[in-house]
């Protein structure tokens, strides 16, 4: 037992340090660091490059570690604060999350572009090769465990001392409570924020170096560390350093001690431990959602969400779109669209037609973002998992059906629908956990859920078919099997437009008006009598179902249900791309779905393999661009097109707007 507790303390100490870094940066900047995994990955690669004698500079590993943690990490934090993170403070939660996910995606891609694409599995941290250094009650303690626990203790005690016993700590705590008081006391609050990013990035790097021997150097390797530290941050309600630290520590200990009591195989044996970060979050959310004060705090975030740059950009966009002139431009758009849709399978060969057909399927998945984020305003990082659940459910029922007699007797179309329904029902369960509190909780819970699905569901042999994926088929419509790229092209296009039609219909209905109200002001929606929770839950589930159907369409084209194409790391890229294009814009989401497929294909056709991650870096950068364009790329382009149409129609783009004073007064949340 004691050996498991010690192992758990070492794992938990890593989680705890990482959780501390999350809380430190959130406290000072009100930005949750979704890019911490990417930062740790970059710093870990720097360490590997400096310390590795074969492919790098061959420095002493302790010197390399110190250089990375004390110098490179804080400088990276400062640099990112200077160019990006310092500009996020007053943006909407969705924009902040999108930018941070973009940064995560971009950092990982940039790291692999700089240091190499191939994962490195065997890496020693600064401690070197593991060895037993002493025993406690006959339990061996390794050098690695000892160093991790001692380092975490030093970081925790150091943090306590700095925050509670020094002037810097006093200023930091003061800045968290009141930025204005910090200004009045003669300190620039920007310095506090910058310092917190420097310190937070350094600690994240330290945790990253320590976890290296366990996970190696691969883009997804740091996901467990980040999910567990996020669980700690949720336990600490993002702001309580010590609750986050000890919550994450407890999670690590529980994960290791459970090994003693769980069977070595079966669902419980394989799924429970990776699910623990999610379960810890669920418990924390269920407890906090009963607390009136926490609910009120998250409501404040919702109020703040409509009082920011996003709303200003949106009203500029709407002012252009409400101009009475130039509405004919949509017909130009429809004509071009029809021409392109009909022309593509004629112009392109089977390979490219097939790619575009899969692009339609991905667009269906991306349209789920319109429901979940564009309509209900929910930040979901699990759309990819719902797509994956659709994939494995559809394939599983085709391969294991007993209802329809022999195997393979379930029509593929019906299987796709069942995949969507299973994904939708899963969405109900996840939604019940992630919706009661604010947008950040939803983002983190869905992130953890996506990781849970990766590790506890996709890995099961009945779904992964021992890594090769379950065979799946093409649908048969009116006796015709869609076994050519061209026929699947038309099928994908029809489904995509059917979903778009459904979403258009939703937007113009009472429900669409209700969601517009919920996004703008929950208190207004509530006092009009709308049940916000049920409405959002319904749309969240519907979004999950649409993603599930889209996912199973992808599997149908590929003839195999391969869950590894639907993992969380890829899901972050999807999210970045969807939000950057504009989650309210169906054209934008279609562009996102197409770009996701076509850009890597085009790059791989014309660029060397070592630049394979360049498209991903670009996807990250377009998400980061939301700092300047929070409503997304496509609405901006759409507005420019409409401006041109207005000019051609002889209309005026000049509008009278209320004064700045009036606007700012209207943005003050309701007082007492």
């Amino acid at each position, binding site marked *: 037992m004691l050996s498991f507790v010690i192992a758990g303390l070492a794992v938990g100490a890593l989680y705890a340090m990482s959780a501390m870094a999350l809380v430190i940066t959130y406290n000072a900047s009100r930005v949750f660091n979704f890019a911490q995994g990417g930062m740790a990955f970059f710093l870990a690669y720097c360490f590997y490059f400096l310390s590795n004698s074969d492919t790098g500079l061959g420095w002493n590993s302790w010197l390399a570690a110190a250089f990375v943690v004390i110098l490179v990490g804080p400088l990276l934090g400062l640099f990112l604060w200077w160019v990006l993170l310092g500009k996020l403070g007053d943006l909407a939660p969705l924009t902040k999350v999108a930018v941070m996910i973009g940064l995560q995606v971009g950092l990982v891609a940039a790291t692999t572009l700089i240091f190499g694409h191939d994962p490195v599995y065997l890496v020693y941290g600064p401690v070197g090769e593991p060895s037993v250094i002493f025993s406690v009650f006959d339990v061996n303690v390794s050098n690695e465990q000892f160093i991790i626990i001692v380092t975490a203790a030093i970081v925790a005690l150091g943090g306590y001392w700095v925050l509670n016993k020094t002037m810097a700590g006093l200023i930091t705590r003061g800045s968290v409570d009141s930025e204005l008081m910090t200004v009045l006391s003669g300190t620039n609050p920007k310095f506090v924020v910058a310092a917190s990013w420097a310190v937070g990035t350094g600690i994240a790097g330290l945790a990253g170096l320590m976890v290296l021997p366990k996970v190696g150097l691969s883009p997804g390797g740091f996901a467990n560390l980040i999910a567990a530290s996020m669980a700690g941050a949720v336990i600490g309600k993002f702001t309580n350093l010590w609750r986050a630290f000890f919550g994450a520590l407890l999670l690590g200990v529980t994960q290791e001690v459970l090994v003693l009591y769980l069977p070595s195989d079966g669902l419980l044996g394989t799924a429970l431990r990776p699910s623990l970060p999610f379960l810890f979050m669920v418990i924390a959310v269920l407890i906090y959602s009963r607390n009136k004060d926490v609910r009120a705090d998250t409501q404040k975030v919702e109020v703040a969400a409509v009082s920011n740059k996003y709303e200003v950009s949106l009203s500029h966009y709407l002012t252009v779109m409400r101009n009475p002139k130039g509405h004919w431009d949509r017909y130009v758009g429809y004509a071009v669209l029809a021409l392109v849709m009909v022309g593509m399978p004629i112009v392109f060969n089977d390979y490219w037609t097939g790619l575009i057909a899969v692009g339609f399927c991905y667009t269906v998945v991306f349209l789920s973002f319109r429901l979940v984020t564009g309509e209900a305003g929910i930040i979901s990082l699990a759309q990819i998992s719902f797509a994956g659940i659709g994939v494995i459910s559809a394939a599983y029922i085709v391969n294991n059906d007993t209802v329809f007699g022999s195997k393979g007797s379930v029509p593929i179309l019906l299987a796709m629908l069942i995949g969507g329904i299973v994904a939708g029902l899963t969405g109900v369960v996840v939604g019940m956990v992630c919706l009661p509190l604010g947008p950040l909780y939803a983002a983190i819970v869905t992130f953890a859920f996506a990781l849970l699905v990766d590790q506890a569901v996709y890995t099961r042999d009945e779904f992964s078919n021992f890594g090769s994926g379950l065979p799946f088929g093409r649908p048969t419509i009116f006796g015709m099997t869609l076994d050519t790229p061209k026929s699947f092209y038309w099928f994908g296009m029809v489904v995509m437009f059917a979903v778009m039609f*459904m979403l258009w219909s939703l937007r113009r209905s009472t429900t669409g008006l209700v969601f517009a109200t919920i*996004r703008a002001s929950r208190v207004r929606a*509530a006092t*009009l009598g709308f049940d916000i929770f049920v409405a959002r839950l319904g749309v969240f589930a519907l979004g999950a179902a649409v993603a599930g159907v889209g996912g199973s369409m992808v599997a149908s084209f590929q003839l195999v249900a391969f869950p590894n194409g639907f993992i969380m790391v890829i899901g972050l890229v999807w999210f970045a791309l969807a939000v950057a294009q504009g989650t309210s814009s169906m054209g934008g989401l279609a562009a996102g779905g197409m770009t996701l497929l076509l850009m890597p294909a085009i790059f791989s056709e014309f660029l060397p393999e070592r630049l394979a991650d360049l498209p991903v870096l670009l996807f990250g950068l377009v998400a980061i661009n939301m700092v300047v364009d929070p409503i997304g790329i496509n609405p901006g382009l759409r507005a420019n097109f409409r401006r041109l149409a207005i000019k051609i129609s002889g209309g005026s783009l000049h509008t009278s707007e209320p004064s700045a004073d009036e606007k700012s*007064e209207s943005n003050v949340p309701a007082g*007492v």
Partner: protein
Amino acid sequence: MSTITNTTLRADGVSIRFGGVQALNKVSMEANPGEITALIGPNGAGKSTMLGCMSGTLEQNEGSIFIGQSDVSTASPQKRAAMAMARTFQSPQLVTELTVREHVILAMRAGKQVRAGKWAAISNFLLALIPFLSRGISQAEIDLADELIVDLGLGKDREKGPSDLTLGQRRLLEVALCLATDAKIMLLDEPSAGLDRAETEHLGEVIKALAKDRNITIVLVEHDLELVFAISSRVFVLDFGQLIDSGTPAEMRASKAVQTAYLGTVEE
């Protein structure tokens, strides 16, 4: 909503604290159908907090709220809306994406949907997903909404979004939302702020006619005492979270306690 017959709104010993601040301390008041009941007091007296407790957007620490004989103290804002309550906000809570007309149509539909119950909301949601069956905005709705919009003096701005309105116009739109839900109890939080004298007088007439003609229970929080004394039947005065006096407008005009709360005292 239609089943509510007694729309008397009553607060009984309501107290609420925000941290160390006692925002309301055992405040009791009553508002009757067909009357305008005003709630006045200096800044920070707790007027909007009282409206928050009445509408369910704030949860009082002590005391009870009644609609007729029904205790709604722990009811959600949605449940109170289903009992024919609507409110405006001091800081307008409007939707950037919707025009003035769409706001009013939304509120009209909200009133109908809430009256029809939960199943109507669910069936509306499902129908919304089916193209051709989903309910776009009809000409009849546009006509009804426009009538209300013109009544409140927002006729020229019906196609504008809230960000293109002045603060006064936004407050008028808030009132329009209340009217459009066909509520029987209305809580109006400083509806005249930002309006000029003529607009304020017009608004006063609209509110007075509402109470009288439609037998609506109106609670009015207002800084414009001239408007309050002109249209209210009964006035409650708050100061530092305490109810310091209540009575008819004439009595309150003469009340020493009210004068002291507003003007302070001079030490001899």
